[in-house]
C-alpha cells in the first residue's frame, strides 16, 4: 500500500498573456518510509509539486491520495489532522525562520497551532527535537540571527518533525548551504529517515545529493515526469534521453578534461506557457522523429519516450 499517491496532478497559473502550465499531469506513489527524489532543471515544476503535496497550493486538477484518503480539495479544518502527517522543509534557511521568534517558539509552533500537548510539556519536547537534529537544547531561547545557515536548516527540520509526520516534503533543503554543511544536513536527514521511518519527497536539482539520499528518482521536464524508477536503474541505466543528458552533466573528477560521453543539449527550455506539441523534450532531443511532434509519449514502464534506450543497456 502506498502512503501517498498522486494521479494526474496539475497546476496551471494564470499569468499576463496566458496560462503557465507549471505542473501538467504527474503520476507517482511514495510508500511508507520510502524516499522519492524529484529532480529537474529550474522551472520544471518541482517546487510547485512539493507545495501542492502539502496543500500550500491548490491543485488545478488531478488527485492527491494520502493513506487512502483523497486530500486534493480538503478545507483547512478537515486538513488539520493530516497536516500532522505531512510536513515540509524549505530551501532558504534565512527565510524559513521567523526572525522575531526564539528558536524554541519556532520549533513549538506546529504544536501550538494544533493545540498538541506532548507528555512532559512543550518545552521538553522542543528540547528533545533540538537534540535530535544535533543542536544544543540550551539554545532554546536564542534567535535565528544567532545561527549559521546549517544550524537554521536544522531548526527548520526540527520544526517539521514536531508533529511526528509520516511524510516530509523537502524542497531543496541543502542547495542554499555550503558543500561541507550539505553533507552534514543530508546525513542528518538520512539518519532521521532510518530512525523514524519517515517517507520523503526530496526535491533537488543536484543529482549527486539525490543519488545519495533517495531510493527512487523521478526526473521532471517542463511539468511532466519523463522517467521514474529505482535509483540504480536511473543512474546506471538511464533510458530517457533527457535523463542521459542530465547525468552526463555531472562533473566527474576521473574524467576531467575529457569531453567525450558528455551530451550537450542545445537551445533553451521552452516556456511552460506554450509547451511543444507531442513530446515536450523533442525540441532539444537528438532522437526526435515525426511521431514525437504529434503524439505525447505516455509514461510506460517508467519512461515517457517514443525511442527509449533498451532496458538493461548501460
Amino acid at each position, binding site marked *: 500500500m502506498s502512503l501517498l499517491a498522486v494521479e494526474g496532478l496539475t497546476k496551471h497559473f494564470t499569468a499576463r498573456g496566458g496560462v503557465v502550465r507549471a505542473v501538467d499531469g504527474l503520476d507517482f506513489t511514495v510508500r511508507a518510509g520510502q524516499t522519492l527524489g524529484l529532480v529537474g532543471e529550474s522551472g520544471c515544476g518541482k517546487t510547485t509539486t512539493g*507545495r501542492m503535496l502539502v496543500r500550500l497550493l491548490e491543485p488545478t486538477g488531478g488527485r492527491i491520495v494520502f493513506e487512502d484518503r483523497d486530500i486534493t480539495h480538503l478545507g483547512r479544518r478537515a486538513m488539520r489532522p493530516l497536516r500532522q502527517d505531512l510536513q515540509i522543509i524549505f530551501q*532558504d534557511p534565512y527565510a*524559513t525562520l*521567523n526572525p522575531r521568534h526564539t528558536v524554541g517558539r519556532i520549533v513549538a509552533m506546529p504544536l501550538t497551532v494544533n493545540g498538541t500537548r506532548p507528555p512532559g510539556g512543550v518545552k521538553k519536547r522542543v528540547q528533545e527535537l533540538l537534540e535530535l537534529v544535533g543542536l544544543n537544547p*540550551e*539554545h532554546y531561547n536564542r534567535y535565528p540571527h544567532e545561527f549559521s545557515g546549517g544550524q537554521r536548516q536544522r531548526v527548520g527540520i526540527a520544526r517539521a518533525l514536531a508533529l511526528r509526520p509520516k511524510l516530509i516534503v523537502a524542497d531543496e533543503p541543502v542547495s542554499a548551504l555550503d*558543500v561541507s554543511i550539505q553533507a552534514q544536513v*543530508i546525513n542528518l536527514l538520512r539518519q532521521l529517515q532510518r530512525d523514524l521511518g519517515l517517507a520523503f519527497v526530496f526535491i533537488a536539482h*543536484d543529482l*549527486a545529493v539525490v543519488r545519495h539520499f533517495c531510493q527512487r528518482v523521478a526526473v521532471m521536464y517542463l511539468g511532466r515526469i519523463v522517467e521514474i524508477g529505482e535509483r540504480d536503474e536511473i543512474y546506471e541505466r538511464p533510458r530517457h534521453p533527457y535523463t542521459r543528458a542530465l547525468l552526463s552533466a555531472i562533473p566527474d573528477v576521473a574524467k576531467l578534461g575529457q569531453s567525450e560521453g558528455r551530451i550537450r543539449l542545445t537551445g533553451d527550455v521552452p516556456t511552460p506557457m506554450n509547451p511543444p506539441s507531442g513530446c515536450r523534450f523533442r525540441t532539444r532531443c537528438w532522437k526526435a522523429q515525426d511521431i514525437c511532434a504529434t503524439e505525447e509519449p505516455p509514461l510506460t514502464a517508467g519512461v515517457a519516450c517514443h525511442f527509449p534506450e533498451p532496458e538493461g543497456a548501460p
Partner: protein
Amino acid sequence: MSLSPEVLEPVPVADAAPAPKGVVGRSPGQLAWMRLRRDRTAMISGCTLLFLMLVALAAPLIEVLYGVGPHDEFKHLLTRRGSIPLGYAGGVSADHWFGIEPGTGRDIFIRMVYGLRTSIFIALASAIVTAGLGVTAGILAGYLGGWVDTVISWITDFALALPFLIFALAVMRPVELRFYGPREEVPTWFRVAVLIAIFAAFGWTSTARLVRGQVISLREREFIEAARASGAGLGHILFRQLLPNLWAPILVSFSLAVPAYVTGEAALSFLGIGIVDPTPDFGAMIFRSIAYLQTDPAYVFFPGITIFALVLAFNLFGDALRDALDPKSSR
C-alpha cells in the same frame, strides 16, 4: 555544488558550539534597544519627551504646588488701559514664572502645563487610533490580497487625495451643529473627540500603505508557509507571525505621526475649529498671542518655544528609533 558519496559518509556531528548553561539570546528588539541607548540624540530627545509627558500627566499636582490655577485671573497685574501685563517680559515674576496673559490676566505657565496635556492627549490618542486602523487595514489588504486589497487601496488613495485642512474646516462646524444647537456651548470633550476622529480618518491611510507593503514582502516568506503547512489559522499568521515583524515600521510611523498631530491640532485650534478658549491649548494660545505680538511679544514666545521643543524632540526620537530598528538603512 555536487557531492560524491564518499564525502557524505561521516556520521553527522552537531555544528553547534557548546554554550554555557541557561544561555539566553538577544532578541532583535533588545538589540535595537541597545543601539538606541548608545544614540545620544535619541537619549536627549527621549528624556525631553519623558519630561514633557510627566509635566502633562502631573498637571493637577503642579497646580497645587504652584498655587495658581489655569482659570485664575490676575487683572490687578495688568495696565488699566491696554490690559498689558506690568513688569518685564510679559510680567515674569516669582509668582508667575512665564508671565501672565494680556487681556485676561491668566497665568501663562500653568496654562501651558494644561495646554501640554491637551496637545499630547489629542496627538497620542489620534496616533493610537490611526495606528490601530492603519495596521488592521494594511495587514488585511496585504495578506488577503484580491478584492479586499483592491477596496482598501482604493479607499486609501481616495483619502490621500482629499485636502485635509479644507475637509476639516468644512466638517467641524456641521458636525457640532448636528449634535448641539447654534447657541449651545459645545463641550470640550466633544470637540476633542471630533478632532481625533478627523485625524484618524485621514491618518490611517499612510500607515495602512506602509504596513501593506511590508506584509506583501513578508507574505511569501517561507516561515509564513511553514505556519500554513502546520495548519495555522488566519489569526495566528496575522498576529503571531506577521505582526512581530511589523513593529519596527509601526513604531517609527507612530513616533513620527505624533508630532504631526501636535502641530495639526495646534493649527486647527489656531484657525478656531479645534480647541477654543478658555480651554488651555497651545494653538489657541498662539492664536490669542498674535493680537499682542507688538505690545507683548513675550506672550507668543513661551508656548511657541515649548511646542517647537515638543515637536522637534518627537521627530528626532522617531528618526533615532528608525536608525536603531533598522541599522542597515543608509542615512
